[in-house]
């Protein structure tokens, strides 16, 4: 390759730029001190600085730096030779140079014949020349396992050596060589060709290279002098390019080359089969990766949140339109109470909007006293319990803190919403552990586990990961599955559905053009429905609005941990308002009833107003208030009576769900019983 006259000084600069700037400066100053000023001492000092800096890391130096180090030794030998006081060091310089690179040839323009002879004598005392020929050239040589420059003449230490020459697309060749003093040896490598190779650079380095979907690794490094011409032709700097990435054996046929990077758009190149055969070395144009970024907006109705993206702080919420590389991140928001974390994937050019809410914090207070078999394993399971929780942030106890102290600290600081204490059950031999899960206000549940079971915490983790639905989409219809009808049969409908033209007493046969045969089919389809759906009834197609039906939290189900559900609802309530807030309060009241905290339940339910008159509504609320007062004893019968009377004012109010039993007959019975 011919280089233009402008390119040579440029490349020289580049070579030096690639090195440490201080070393480069010292090397140039040393040369100038001698060549321009004839200041031998100054030059020696500067070259010694270069040697002191590079010699300790000689084994890991880049070729350019190695060359600088070798030249510095050459210069120092020449300068030392000029003064009687330092002349004796000349030989030491050459010894150091030979141990560094025995193939180095002295610069004869500045080194005297005498010194060259000394150098050659020293070299021939330990090394013998070997003539090497390589076919084809341009491969990599390894001598005794170490990478070495593939030169036509190499000096090897006396003894036996193993030489391997390899080149992409060829079968590597290994030869063993015995080197003896004053004996010139010759060795020829002739590698047979077995495949085509493909070589390319990316700008910048880093993308993953996939050939036909199989990952081959990532492009690495920064371009140097060899890449300069390529880089300039593309209007880039050499360091903008990666080191060459070589696919050493391109299989026959067509291929798909794909490059993927976390911050770049994927690039796909279709490779024709002519690249694979006949065998040849192919070099592609450098592949320029286009940046790929999206925007991230994170908001929360809860105050005080701070955003962290894969551990990096991104400031307080709200964060709007934050430009981030496309990719997947661990997103975390820290709140004054609770936290939020999830994985989020940002796609190229697309915005991601997240409304986040804090999760309750579960503080594990520790395993109280008592030694038992398997304690260490059980301790470890509890310590790693947080990784299994989807809806809770898990806090470990402070080192050296007792459970009692930890509880006192948390009650004072309110740094957690839930606590977990493990207590061995006092048996002759401990084989059961009681786990107490409680809110800081004392609502608790206890479960007993056996520490030697394969996974004693599985059931607790499963329960903590389950959250009840408080709402479901609906059409305002009462549907029945009758064997004689082709689809769910409409028993009743709300005013909105009737207005849309729906007729009670007729079956629905399709929803959004999909056939439905049961009420379950409709409920499934509604899970992904938008504002309205089309239903087919007879030969008519009607558009019916989708409504949101309130639900009661299902109580008494062993699949839920009610203190944890209560903590969830309390946290969600902090960021809720209006109807949603009232529904949360209502269900918090129900859980308190379930946990037999009737006084607290009444306080909460009385402060709640459900605007609906059908389904889960104010009548439902009043009925539950009445039941709470009944539980408080005879002193509150008057209040209970009043609540049940209120409930009777809502004849369409139901329990459990809009399809649940009517409240009115139950309230009436309760009133009759109170008489």
């Amino acid at each position, binding site marked *: 390759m011919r280089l233009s006259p402008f390119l040579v000084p440029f490349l020289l600069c580049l070579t030096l730029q690639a090195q440490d700037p201080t070393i480069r400066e010292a090397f140039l100053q040393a040369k100038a001190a001698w060549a321009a000023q004839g200041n031998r001492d100054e030059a020696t000092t500067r070259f010694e600085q270069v040697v002191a800096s590079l010699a300790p890391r000689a084994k890991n130096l880049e070729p350019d730096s190695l060359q600088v180090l070798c030249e510095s030794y050459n210069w120092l030998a020449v300068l030392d030779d000029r003064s009687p006081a330092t002349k004796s060091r000349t030989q030491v310089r050459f010894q150091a140079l030979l141990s560094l690179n025995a193939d180095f040839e002295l610069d004869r323009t500045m080194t005297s014949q005498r010194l060259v002879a000394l150098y050659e004598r020293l070299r021939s005392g330990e090394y013998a020349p070997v003539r090497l020929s390589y076919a084809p050239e341009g491969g990599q040589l390894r001598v005794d396992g170490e990478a070495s420059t593939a030169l036509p003449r190499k000096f090897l230490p006396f003894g036996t050596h193993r030489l391997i020459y390899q080149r992409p697309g060829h079968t590597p060749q290994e030869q063993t060589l015995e080197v003896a003093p004053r004996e010139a040896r010759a060795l020829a490598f002739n590698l047979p060709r077995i495949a085509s190779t493909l070589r390319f650079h990316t700008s910048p380095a880093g993308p993953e290279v996939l050939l036909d979907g199989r990952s081959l690794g990532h492009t690495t490094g920064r371009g140097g002098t060899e890449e300069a011409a390529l880089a300039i032709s593309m209007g880039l700097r050499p360091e903008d390019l990666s080191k060459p990435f070589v696919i050493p054996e391109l299989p026959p046929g067509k291929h798909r080359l794909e490059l993927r990077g976390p911050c770049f758009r994927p690039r796909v190149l279709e490779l024709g089969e002519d690249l694979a055969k006949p065998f040849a070395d192919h070099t592609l144009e450098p592949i320029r990766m286009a940046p790929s970024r999206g925007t991230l907006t994170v908001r929360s109705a809860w105050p005080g949140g701070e955003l962290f993206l894969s551990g990096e702080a991104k400031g307080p919420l709200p964060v709007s339109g934050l430009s981030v590389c496309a990719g997947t991140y661990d997103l975390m928001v820290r709140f004054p109470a609770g936290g939020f974390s999830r994985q989020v994937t940002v796609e190229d050019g697309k915005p991601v909007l997240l409304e986040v809410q804090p999760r309750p914090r579960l503080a594990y207070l520790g395993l109280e006293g008592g030694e038992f078999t398997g304690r260490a394993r059980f301790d470890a399971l509890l310590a790693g319990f947080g990784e299994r929780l989807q809806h809770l942030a898990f806090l470990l106890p402070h080192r050296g803190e007792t459970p009692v102290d930890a509880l006192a600290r948390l009650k004072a600081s309110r740094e957690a919403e839930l606590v977990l204490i493990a207590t061995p059950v006092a048996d002759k031999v401990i084989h059961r552990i009681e786990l107490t899960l409680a809110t800081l206000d004392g609502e608790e549940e206890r479960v007993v586990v056996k520490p030697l079971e394969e996974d004693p915490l599985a059931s607790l983790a499963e329960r903590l990961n389950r959250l009840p639905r408080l709402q479901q989409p609906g059409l305002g219809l009462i549907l029945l599955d009758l064997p004689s009808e082709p689809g769910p049969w409409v028993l009743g409908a709300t005013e909105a559905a009737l207005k849309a033209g729906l007729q009670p007493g007729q079956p629905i046969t399709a929803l959004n053009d999909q056939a439905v045969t049961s*009420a379950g089919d409709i409920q499934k389809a509604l899970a992904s429905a938008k504002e309205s759906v089309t239903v087919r009834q007879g030969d008519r197609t009607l558009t019916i609005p989708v409504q949101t039906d309130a639900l009661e939290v299902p109580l*008494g189900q062993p699949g839920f941990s009610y203190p944890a559900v209560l903590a969830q609802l309390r946290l969600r309530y902090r960021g809720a308002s209006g109807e949603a807030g009232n529904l949360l309060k209502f269900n918090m009241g129900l859980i308190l009833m379930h946990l037999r905290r009737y006084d607290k339940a009444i306080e909460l339910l009385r402060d709640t107003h459900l605007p609906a008159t059908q389904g889960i509504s104010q009548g439902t609320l009043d009925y539950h208030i009445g039941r709470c007062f009944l539980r408080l004893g005879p002193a509150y019968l008057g209040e209970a009576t009043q609540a049940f009377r209120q409930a009777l004012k809502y004849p369409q109010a139901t329990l459990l769900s809009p399809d649940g039993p009517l409240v009115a*007959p139950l309230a009436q019975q309760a009133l009759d019983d109170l008489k």
Partner: protein
Amino acid sequence: MLALPTCYRPAAAILCLLAPGLRAQGGDLAERLYQSGERAYAARSYKEAIETWQQLLQSNPTSSYCPKALLKLAQHQVEIEKKPEAALPFLDRLKADFLKSPEAAEGLLLSGRLLLGQAHRPGDLKDAMAEFHRLLDLYPDAPACAQARLELGRAWGLLGQWGRALPQFLDAFRLRYDVRVAPQAMLAAAETMDLLGDLPGCLRMFQQLHTEFPALPEGQEATWRMAVRVKHRLQRPGLKLEGPWPQGRVKWLKTPLLLQGTPEGDLLIFQNDLDHAFRLRGTELTPVGPPGPSARALVNSRAGTLWMLTRNTLIREEAPAPQPIGTLNAVTGGVLDAWDQLWIADAKVAALTVLAPDGSTRSVGSPPIQALTARLGGGLVAASDSDRKLLFLDQGGQPRLVIPYGKDLPAAFRTVTALCSDGAGQVAALVDGGDYGEGVLIFGPDGTLLRQAQFKTLGISGRITSLALDHSGAVILCDRRNDVLLRLN
């Protein structure tokens, strides 16, 4: 404190040292005895298991294994020995000595269920209900609470207090969502809502049961119960003759006279020429029960066996010798109530005769009754040709609804040949005479006429002697003259 003489002190010290060991040994022995009994029981060596547990109760009467053993002994008497009364002493000891043990909740539940099973009159329910309430008060978080609430609801239902039964059924599946109890509670709640007049609520509950537990018997029961209610009460399609039933079967019976549906959906047919009853399941006909010459009524017993009433006797499958039923001589129908009392109607006696399980009889005043069938939730429906009225009687035999013959019909009929009910609230009557003539009427649980058809309109010309309502909402007619069953749908 008394000081021991010096010579006794070493012995006392040894005893003091040994005492905890002895106690521990006693505890170990109790555990070993209990587990040994469990192993024997699992191997079905019942005698050995019972003796081992009895030994445990005698040797370690205060051990924490005693309540477990007492509960096991009680359960054995109920489940294996089938002697519920023999279980009660074990349960009484469990309640008296170990009320704070974890087994006490199960013991209270079992005790309540046994007392409920033994109840023969409303007054007997008090003790059973007290046991359930005790369980709910003492162990509100025990898994047994769901079953206790279900049983409490059933007890209120036996008393006819459906308004009090409903909250118990609802709580049984709402507050303790037990997969075994929940479907039963939902089924009971749905039926109770219907009895309280909330048909939409009843249907919604059936639908929920059908959706949540489609594979369970209760889910399948909900499906047909929902379907027949909708068909008869809401859709009310006109009755049409489908023809012989099972399809294409003609002249295959020998003078069929009586029909009776079973809770499983089968049909019992009494063939007069064979003096025998048969069970029709699908298209398969199998003889059932002992011979019953000139049977007048077929009754399903609670145990699933067949009882037949002849002119003046009761023939039971489990006791083949006919049992005389007092002075009755012209029996027209019989219904077994929730207390296992057999209500018998006689065309010539102006009263209903109630035959108690202990064999005693009593009379409940009524006009002479020509046909009798059960009413949903207890009670009876009786037809009195002399008064020309259909009487909807409560559990005590007192009329709650009186429907004059011909009400809501274009013309009156004169007699009711037979009555039947489908277990979902509907009552069908086979009528004859008057300007209306032969026909079939279907009434709702509140006496509303839901569907009706005259045989002359349907083209039926045989001699229809009995009828039944099936689980799909069809009417099956028994044509004595043509030896065939007909289906109206």
